[in-house]
């Protein structure tokens, strides 16, 4: 029984990273209508910048984490300005932003590889306390707690921000109809920049935490996150940030449990299998509502 609960905890900690990443990915997808393939590289850059801040500059880890997150956010805004804004201005439709994001993905990934090299490294051991916390027979690492807390905080914080604040109202107005939103006095440019920053910063946070808990920082860290985050968004549903977060946690648990009880080789098969089944049977996601199609 303890083993089962221990696996659940491990799954939650793993899933927290997917949930975080999925939330940021879903924010861009649902509010800006962009399937942003480059989102994984934001996570990579967050982790890499945080690593440089710790290892080369010598900042303490919490400060380095903030630096990494902000750096990822800035890269996200730049990506939006360079690749998506011109398309938005032209009203280019659905496919063009996907293509542009593929370009940015190749660009950012290659630059990361050029800057960082192909070798993998990890954050220094003393970054966060590494002594496990023992509680009722369970062993919990501080990094795991950090993951879960960050994911819950960001998911609910973002949900509240989107549903209860002026900023959230502005974001929803723009995602519904940018022109009308502008007419009623929403500053579209500023809101879009802010959304781009938030989404990318969350990806950066996910990247740093992923690097921390897997003890592995490399230029392709974000690629695995992208696939899992993508699965979280699809499974969780298109409309609600909380769905993506919940699905992220579920995918983490599913992975840990299936690796334990079935086979570690089939771990990804099960995740992506669930992804396909959900897509076909319930394309709006487990928690999404069926949207009325506009003609």
């Amino acid at each position, binding site marked *: 029984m303890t083993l089962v609960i221990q696996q659940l905890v491990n799954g939650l900690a793993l899933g927290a990273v997917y949930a975080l990443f999925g939330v940021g990915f879903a924010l861009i*997808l649902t509010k800006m209508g962009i*399937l942003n*393939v480059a989102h994984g590289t934001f996570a990579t850059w967050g982790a890499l910048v945080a690593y440089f801040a710790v290892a080369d500059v010598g900042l303490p880890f919490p400060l380095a984490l903030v630096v990494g997150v902000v750096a990822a956010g800035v890269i996200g805004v730049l990506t939006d300005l*360079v*690749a998506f804004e*011109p*398309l938005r201005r*032209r009203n*280019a439709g*659905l*496919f*063009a932003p*996907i*293509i*542009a994001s*593929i*370009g*940015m*993905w*190749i*660009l*950012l*990934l*290659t*630059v990361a*590889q*050029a800057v960082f090299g192909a070798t993998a490294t990890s954050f220094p051991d003393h970054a966060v306390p590494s002594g496990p916390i023992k509680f009722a027979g369970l062993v919990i690492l501080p990094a795991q707690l950090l993951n879960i807390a960050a994911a819950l905080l960001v998911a609910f914080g973002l949900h509240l921000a989107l549903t209860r604040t002026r900023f959230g109202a502005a974001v929803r107005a723009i995602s519904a109809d940018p022109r009308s939103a502008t007419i009623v006095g929403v500053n579209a440019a500023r809101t879009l920049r802010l959304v781009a920053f938030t989404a990318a910063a969350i990806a950066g946070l996910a990247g740093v935490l992923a690097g921390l808990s897997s003890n592995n920082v490399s230029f392709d860290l974000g690629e695995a996150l992208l*696939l899992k985050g*993508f*699965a979280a968004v*699809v499974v969780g549903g298109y409309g609600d940030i909380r769905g993506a977060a919940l699905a992220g946690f579920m995918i983490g648990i599913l992975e840990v449990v299936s690796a334990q009880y079935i086979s570690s*080789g*089939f771990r*990804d*098969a099960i995740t*992506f*299998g669930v*992804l*396909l089944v959900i*897509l*076909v049977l319930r*394309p709006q996601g487990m928690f999404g509502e069926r949207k009325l*199609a506009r*003609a």
Partner: protein
Amino acid sequence: MNLAAWNTTLQFAGVSAIFALSIYASLWTGVLSLAPVFFGAVSAFTFGWVTLTVGLPPVAGLVLAAAGGGLLGVLTAFLVLRLESHYLAMATIALVLIGRVLVLNMEDFTGGVAGTLAPGDLGTWLWCLGCLGLAAYVLARLRGSRFGLAASAVREDPAVAQSLGINPRSVQLVGFVLSGVFGGMAGVLQASFLQFIGPDTFYTHLGFTTLAAVVLGGAFHWLGPIIGAVVFTALPELLRGPLGEFDSIVTGLLLVVIIIYLPRGLVDLRRLRLLRGRGKTAVSE
């Protein structure tokens, strides 16, 4: 670059062109699909298996793979065509992800992580150009046909197409079958050129770069994907001299610049017509 290197590069460009036509075939009907990578993976591993383990001649393997690709196209279409645009694109990406997992786990059949060998008999100019020519010929003949016009209509506006008596789903189904056959052929040729295929041979990278090639060349005429694929394969080789291994930086930049400033790609008959016949009313695609 010496002549032999160019020879290899251009042969790969030919294979990429067939992959690009496979993506184009479903894009023509308004469906953004990365499924060709999946079709390619299935056919390539089938090809390796039937030629090396079962002992069929390579040509039979190619025919089998093309037919199997078409069948797979039908199955995929039934699975994903009910979905709307974004979801559909996502489902085909999911197929590519699942394809890799299948390759990794069906070890007896695919060699798992280590990958498998494939006979190099079809890795010649003759087969490459033959298959490319066949695919281009089919698309060129279809362009002016009832299907071609219907496909363009569905792509521009499915609702209008439906009101004109076109069933968008069946047009898209045909697109998927074409895509499956071309993807199957491309997968076999790729395997035959590489003579070795692994779990990462047919993965997201191939899908995204091929899609990029289609966009670069132009997704509104069958010539576009071919030219795009050739440029996209040759350009990194040309840049490898001055830029070293980081030639993809230019690839990425180019992609962003093209989609912003030249959204219809290099081959754009409409622009040519507009340039030629200023003042006259331009006929749109």
